[in-house]
């Protein structure tokens, strides 16, 4: 199969987490993130426990720590924002290393960093253990509007095609000696974007005609209905339930 069928974040393996039905994983990750977000930020240890829980899931899923940590780099822009918070927030201030920092700003920075990192880590684990097609089936099973799932599946299916088309246009530009170096060149790039839109739209029309000629009548046939047994649901929800216990402890202690 071509590169378009397995996205870059997916790690092929055979583990109990990989084998879970996709919709249970999606629901479990969402529940986990909701629980994490509703935890009070003062309960620092709770976030440590959440990280341990995710670490256990990663170990069960055989996702190496290096892979997970590298994927976490995506949140760097927000780390930068979080670092700014203690300087601009109001309220009482404390002296740290000769700098006057806001206490609430420090809490806010910690809040965003801890919850954001845990959320990203959970999403990364989900993407690493679930294939694209499964993910879409899972979304469909979770009663997302079928049309939305279809649009998403077409976007995923043709995302690489369109990106490749853009890459070919770039190669064509560069092989003619074009080098974009400033605002003056925006016209050329925008023309490329316009051409890319026309190509995408026309490809969409062709895809639609091809679908009609194969009997498409507004809805995709569901060939493989994913189902989950009670055991699989409870297995998937072990993570959010453990997190819920930690969260309730966090509100109490």
């Amino acid at each position, binding site marked *: 199969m071509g590169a378009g069928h397995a996205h870059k*974040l997916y790690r092929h393996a055979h583990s109990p987490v990989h084998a879970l039905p996709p919709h249970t994983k999606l629901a479990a*990750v*969402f529940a986990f*993130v*909701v629980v994490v*977000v509703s935890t009070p*930020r003062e309960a620092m240890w709770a976030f440590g426990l959440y990280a341990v829980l995710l670490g256990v899931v990663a170990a069960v899923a055989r996702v190496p720590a290096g892979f997970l940590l590298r994927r976490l780099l*995506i949140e760097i*822009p927000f780390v930068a924002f979080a670092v700014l*918070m203690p300087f*601009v*927030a*109001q309220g009482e201030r404390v002296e740290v290393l000769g700098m006057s920092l806001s206490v609430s700003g420090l*809490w*806010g920075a910690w*809040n965003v960093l801890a*919850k*954001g990192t845990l*959320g*990203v880590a*959970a*999403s990364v684990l989900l*993407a690493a253990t679930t294939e*694209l097609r499964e993910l879409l089936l899972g979304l469909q099973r979770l009663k997302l*509007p079928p*049309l939305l799932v*279809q*649009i*998403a599946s*077409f*976007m*995923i*299916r*043709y*995302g690489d095609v369109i*990106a490749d088309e*853009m890459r070919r246009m770039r190669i064509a530009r560069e092989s003619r000696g074009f080098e*974009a170096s*400033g605002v003056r*060149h*925006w*016209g050329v*790039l*925008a023309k*490329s*974007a*316009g*051409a*890319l*839109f*026309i190509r*995408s*739209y026309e490809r*969409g*029309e062709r895809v*639609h005609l091809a679908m009609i000629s194969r009997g498409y009548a*507004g809805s995709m046939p569901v060939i493989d209905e994913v189902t989950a047994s009670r055991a699989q649901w409870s297995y998937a929800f072990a993570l959010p339930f453990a997190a819920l216990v930690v*969260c309730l402890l966090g*509100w*109490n202690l």
Partner: protein
Amino acid sequence: MHVPDGFINAPVSAVAGVVAAGAVAVSLRGARRELDERTAPLAGLVAAFIFAVQMLNFPVAAGTSGHLLGGALAAILVGPYTGVLCVSVVLLMQGILFADGGLTALGVNISVMAVVTVVVAYAVFRGLVKVLPKKRPSVTASAFIAALLSVPAAAAVFTLVYAVGGTTDVPIGSVLTAMVGVHTLIGMGEAAITALTVGAVIAVRPDLVYGARGLTAPLKLRVNGELVDAPAARPEPVAVAARSSRKFLLAGLGVSLLLAGVVSFYASADPDGLEKVAADKGIDAKAEDHAAADSPLADYGVEGLTNSRLSGGLAGVIGVGVTIVAGTGVFWAVRKRRTGEDCSPTSVPENV
């Protein structure tokens, strides 16, 4: 820039999620009306295009570069409903697949980056196109201004959401100034690129630009050396005009729905903000001394702390769940009613 988890508190995120779900539901109906059964492949391909074009780097100066956000471009090229859908799907996939933007913040991300950007851009664009002369340059100029305004508008709405449900008490005035200031700069770039791209598409396939429909000159035939109007073989332009006015009404309905959502979100969020302050003060009172002894919070701080906190924690989690369930219920009810309404008016233009 995508909002991560933990940036906006849970109740406001849930309300934003409901607003986003409603907007997406309305857009699904609207897009089906715009594109019929071609919706899935065409909207999917346009979403893929937006996803790809966000990777196209536009060099600014001295090694820095920016990229397109695409909301305004999508609104003008494929129409407001399809535009909202495409940007929402891009955000959904970025959230699930690339961990770009938190899952609980998905509602905030869709409301701000898909709905506000597209609706503002399209409303401004539509208004300007109606006012300006029906020429091709005026479409480009309208696209420029629409994109220019849409980005700071999204930044302002984000600041509003942050003011209601932000987890840090950063002074809102300075946040607003910084956000709108920075995003006006970003908006300039977005506007230039959007206008140039729309211009490039209009030059080649003007029929594809949704916002430029109705600008096509009537077909002329040269009969015996004289130009005569071609006989109106297709009654389609009339139908399009009739539909576009209805679309305008529907867009208004969408905006008012959104406003209703935002207003109700004020009503529900204000007590939350108070509660948040109250909780903070309660914690302060516990940590330092009973400074807030004369406030009604004193009881909360002094007695039954564990119990009230346990109930608070449970109530938080349950509350989020109930909000989601209630929101879904409303959404289904609205959807059902709309299906009933939609049947009669759509059949009219087909008979005409």
